[in-house]
């Protein structure tokens, strides 16, 4: 333990060093001038974004890939409020972040001073915890608590608001990474009795499925999951947040469940007699109509957050704990049941219900699903995919084969358009050996398109695949299906020429309008350096199927438009 006098700014940079932080995403301003002044002489890498929202998403992408907290700096007032969407996004998807905002000097707090915003008040419901620093002496313990809270238990964003004068105030710097917080004691080991009940349930089950989510990825539970699946021969379903926790190209993998899930996954959940739910939260997009969800099944629910257990769905065997630790314990005692017949049934479902929409397009155009499949086929195995939100996101989830954890970054809980591209920037810094592909839409890309400057300036090798359908496609699809095709404000007239726009920023711009061009430009993009924007002009009115209409049972599936 070291103890010395330091200014607030220096304490922050020293704490980041102690925490092993390699990069900060941020944007300067008046209230953080002293911090940025210290940064000027520091060897800490800082990535200057072009909008604070992008800083949070980039830090989020970085955190999802590395598992370490992403760090953000922003100034007071508008700088801080620009973070809000990104924070809410990270909170919903349990992503560890530490955000440091400047605040007006202590003497001005509460006076509506220039660029004052109550960011701790604003972010209270969307952070795991937050702090307003009152004295430089508090900074070391607050910083270590923030990193500890963000990266343990159920992960999440933690914000520290620092009044400007505290950056310059001298205080005692004692940094202790181990901290004791009386009201914060996550449970890691599952309850032994419940684990035994789970073992028995698995042994007796005839039609078991594993339903895994983002918790598997945060807990690093992929390996033990694979071992367990292999031994017990239980099929696996992964939520959108869980994609990659189990290899997407293995027979026992059934796909994603819910609204745009695979038919097999939805049938399996509906017919199962045992669901082993691990690190999921039974979101409405997964369960469909709650009353008819998994009526035939006993449910084992493993989660680090006790509040998730029993929140939406009634649970038979609750196990609070770290998903990896609990699965290890389950694996040790596992007694496989007889699943051969069930697996045969599932194989039949798979054969009879392939993913719709992969047919070749007619008349020299290209279908969006084809683009995704080509991206998947041609990218190397080590690829991180970041998506935006909309139809392209669902097609990416359905058709891009994700084989490894922490390689599929998507805004699951909040559904934030504008997430994908900055998240890809964060991923680029986090995974230098991988390809990074951002799958975005013509709508979503324009929500953070300014980050092309960041990507060009830092020579970041990112492929930005714009699935350009000329629409806010997902909303148009709902208007098509549920609002008599009245396309109210979902036509994106006035879209820029994405190729020329990319070029204006100094990035490479490519375009593909049919299948041959699609294959060719992807190959070309993979060989380019720096950011490459590919404008895939796809069939404009393609819809995402299969689809379970909102609040319908998940085995009530629409597979194509002729069924409407």
């Amino acid at each position, binding site marked *: 333990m070291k103890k010395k006098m330091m200014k607030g700014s220096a304490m922050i940079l020293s704490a980041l060093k102690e925490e092993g932080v390699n990069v900060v995403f941020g944007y300067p301003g008046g209230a953080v001038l002293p911090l940025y002044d210290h940064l000027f002489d520091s060897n800490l890498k800082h990535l200057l974004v072009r909008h604070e929202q992008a800083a949070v998403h980039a830090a989020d992408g970085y955190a999802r890939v590395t598992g370490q907290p992403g760090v953000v700096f922003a100034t007071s007032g508008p700088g801080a409020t620009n973070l809000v969407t990104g924070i809410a996004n990270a909170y919903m998807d349990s992503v560890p972040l530490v955000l440091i905002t400047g605040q007006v000097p202590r003497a001005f707090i509460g006076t509506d001073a220039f660029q004052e915003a109550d960011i*701790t*008040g604003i972010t*209270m*419901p969307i952070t*795991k*915890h937050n702090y*307003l620093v*009152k004295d430089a002496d508090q900074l070391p313990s607050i910083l270590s608590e923030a990193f500890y*809270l963000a990266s343990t238990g159920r992960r999440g964003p933690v914000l520290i608001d620092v009044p400007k004068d505290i950056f310059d105030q001298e205080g005692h710097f004692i940094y202790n990474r181990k901290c004791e*917080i*009386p*009201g*914060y004691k996550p449970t890691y080991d599952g309850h032994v009795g419940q684990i035994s009940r789970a073992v028995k349930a698995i042994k007796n089950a005839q039609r078991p499925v594993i339903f895994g989510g983002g918790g598997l990825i945060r807990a690093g539970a992929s390996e033990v999951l694979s071992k367990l699946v292999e031994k017990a021969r239980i099929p696996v379903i992964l939520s959108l947040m869980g994609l990659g926790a189990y290899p997407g190209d293995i027979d026992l993998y059934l796909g994603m469940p819910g609204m745009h899930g695979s038919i097999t996954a939805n049938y399996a959940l509906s017919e199962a007699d045992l669901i082993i739910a691990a690190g999921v939260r039974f979101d409405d997009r997964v369960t469909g109509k709650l009353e008819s969800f998994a009526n035939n099944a006993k449910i084992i629910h493993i989660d680090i*957050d*006790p*509040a998730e257990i*029993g*929140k939406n769905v009634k649970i038979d065997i609750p196990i609070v704990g770290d998903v990896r630790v609990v699965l290890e314990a389950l694996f040790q005692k596992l007694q496989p049941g007889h699943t051969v017949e069930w697996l045969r049934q599932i194989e039949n479902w798979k054969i009879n219900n392939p993913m719709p929409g992969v047919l070749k397009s007619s008349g020299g155009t290209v279908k969006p699903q084809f683009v995704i499949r080509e991206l998947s086929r041609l990218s190397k195995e080590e690829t991180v995919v970041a998506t935006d939100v909309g139809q392209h996101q669902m097609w990416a989830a359905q058709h891009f084969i994700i084989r490894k954890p922490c390689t599929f970054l998507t805004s699951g809980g909040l559904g934030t358009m504008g997430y994908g591209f900055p998240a890809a920037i964060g991923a680029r810094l986090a995974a230098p050996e991988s390809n990074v592909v951002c799958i975005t839409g013509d709508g979503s890309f324009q929500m953070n398109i300014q980050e092309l400057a960041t990507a060009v300036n830092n020579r970041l090798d990112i492929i930005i695949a714009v699935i350009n359908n000329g629409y806010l496609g997902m909303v148009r699809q709902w208007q098509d299906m549920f609002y008599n095709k009245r396309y109210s404000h979902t036509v994106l007239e006035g879209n820029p020429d994405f190729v020329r726009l990319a070029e204006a920023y100094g990035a490479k711009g490519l375009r593909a309008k049919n299948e041959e061009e699609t294959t060719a430009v992807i190959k070309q993009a993979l060989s380019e350096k720096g950011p490459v924007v590919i404008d895939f002009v796809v069939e404009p009115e393609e819809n995402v199927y299969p689809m379970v209409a909102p609040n319908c049972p998940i085995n009530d599936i629409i597979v194509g438009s002729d069924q409407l």
Partner: protein
Amino acid sequence: MKHILAVLVEDKPGVLTRVAGLFSRRGFNIENIAVGETNNPGISRMTITVEGSETIIEQVIKQLHKLVNVIKVSNLSEEPSVMRELMLIKITAESGSRSDIQQIVETFRGKVIDVSPESMIIEVTGNEEKMEAIKLLFIDFGIKEIVRTGKVALLRGTRITSES
């Protein structure tokens, strides 16, 4: 059903806002809340009365636990406990009605704590029913103003709601 929760919290800035914010955000209804110091420095105790089914209360308790500044949550309605509330009530009291008022106050073991030519202030402690009963009796005299502290409660016997 009504539940009385004893919530031990770190005495940190904003902790009341966090608790109140949690209730409004998750759509839980606080009927009643009383906050004060405890015998442990740095720890405050909130007594919160909430209305809701078993499942709702379970969620309330779990969500409260997730707040970093919350140390312990106990549902006192599930165990033998004593509960009290204090009410001050200002009523119209002309000289003619004073002795009637005095009698009611005595029956309910209340106290007259202020007298002026036209009004009196009465202090009553007790449970919900007692408060309601005395209010009812005073209506005819004319209630000018009421203030209540909110309920506080403790487990009966030697057991305590500790921080562990």
